[in-house]
Each structure stands twice: as structure tokens, then as C-alpha cells.
């Protein structure tokens, strides 16, 4: 079927930045995601990106909303 890339896998990591050249004591959590996307030929590409905790909460909320909508159609 004609389609955009299909999401086939999501890997995640919750990291805590401990220290950096600007701040000796950071203690800053962040979420990293790796998405694996298959195109129609089966070729897999990947995209990874990072989110702050606030961004992650928003991200999670959007996906829950999507699921809620899916229940109704």
C-alpha cells in the first residue's frame, strides 16, 4: 500500500547529565529516543533525538490523545 514510512521500533534511554565544561554539577535528566522507520521496500532508516523532561511529558500526552482518538473512530 502507498504509505509513508512505518514506525517499526522505538528505543529509549533516560539519561542524567552529570557534569559539563560549563557546570561542574548538572543533574539534568533528559530522554533520548531512537525511531526505526521502514519504507515500502523494507529498508530501515533511523532517527534519534533528545527531549527535556517537559518536552517528554508533552510528547507522551500527545500520543495518549492520539490513542484516545483512535478508540473513537
Amino acid at each position, binding site marked *: *500500500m502507498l504509505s509513508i514510512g*512505518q*514506525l517499526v521500533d522505538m528505543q529509549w534511554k533516560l539519561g542524567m547529565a552529570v557534569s559539563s565544561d560549563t557546570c561542574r554539577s548538572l543533574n539534568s535528566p533528559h530522554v533520548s529516543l531512537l525511531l526505526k522507520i521502514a519504507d515500502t521496500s523494507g529498508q530501515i532508516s533511523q532517527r534519534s533525538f*533528545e527531549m527535556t523532561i517537559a518536552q517528554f511529558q508533552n510528547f507522551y500526552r500527545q500520543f495518549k490523545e*492520539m490513542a484516545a482518538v483512535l478508540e473513537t473512530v
Partner: protein
Amino acid sequence: MAAISDEHFSSLQILLKAPSKDAVRQLCADSFPSGAPESWRLAESTAGTLSVSAIEAKELIAALHTLSHHILFHNLTAPEQILVLFPKSFHPSLKNLITKIMLEHSPPWRNEALSNQISLPHLVEMDWRVDMKTASDSVSRMAVPTCLVHMKVEDSSCLRGSGALSSVTVELSKETLDTMLDGLGRIRDQLSVVAGK
């Protein structure tokens, strides 16, 4: 990163020539960004404000930059921690003013440092849509709900903050979405555990 030295503190005393406390405040803010110690434009405008030579102004900016970054790096949050850095002979009122200004600026400077850390590209925007697939060239009638998610991610090959974005569009079936929600739920659980520590 340069360590603070006595030369830095003697440069800081040039601030006694500042026309007002706000001028000192502005100078502390202008000296913070990376690149400030190298900026001749900043040195010249500072030289004008303080009626000193451009060289002296440049040394002052470098001193303020080193001091503010030292405070940020060691996360000095109490006035005593900063006051103790100054030599005993340093002008007392100026010392208190500089300390006060540095403490005022610490929270926004720390936030700036947190958001500028080395990291993977950031997710900038996300849109989504729920579609109903009703027909295709291979299936004449169907009713398959599907999610389309469009994400804009900073382009890591370009300079951070250059605004260059790359787009990712993916489709998720209901099963995939449920699995993904499961994974995201686990992240959220872990976050609660970490936050509790």
C-alpha cells in the same frame, strides 16, 4: 577555562569608574556570553562608557567573563562563597555589588548552560493526525485507522541554533501506537523513580 587571578581582580576595580550600578549590571550581562572577551566592539563601547582605554576595557570584560563562569561552574549560590574569592584589599562596596549582580544572574545563566549542553538533536515540533484508510490499489474497501506523525528535529549537521530543521513523517498502526505508549509509560515510571531520589 582560565582560573581567576589577581590580575582579573585588579581589572575589576575599573568598574569604580562606571556611571551607575545599572551600567555595572549591563556590563556583567554583556561579558557572560562566549565570544564576549574576544569582541572588540564590546571593548570599545565599554571603553567609551568607563572612559578607559580599549585594552583596559577588554581586560575588564575578560575578568568578568572568567568570574561569572567560575561561579556558574562551581554553582556558587551563597554570597559568602563569592565574597571569599575577592582579595582582602578589594573595594568593599564594589565587591558587594558585583556579588549581588552575579547571584541575580545565576539562575538564567544556569538555565542557558543547561539548554546549550552537548546533546543529540532536539525535537522542536510535532504534529499528528488520525486517518481512516478506506481504499487502495490493492484493497477496494477497508476501514483501517492509522496515525500519521510529523516531527521536526534540529538538523545535527548544521550549527546549533542555526534554525535548520529536518522533518520526519511516520505512520503508526494502532498496535504500534499501543506498544509505543507502553514504552513511553515506562520512561514516565522511571522518571518518577529518579525524581523521588
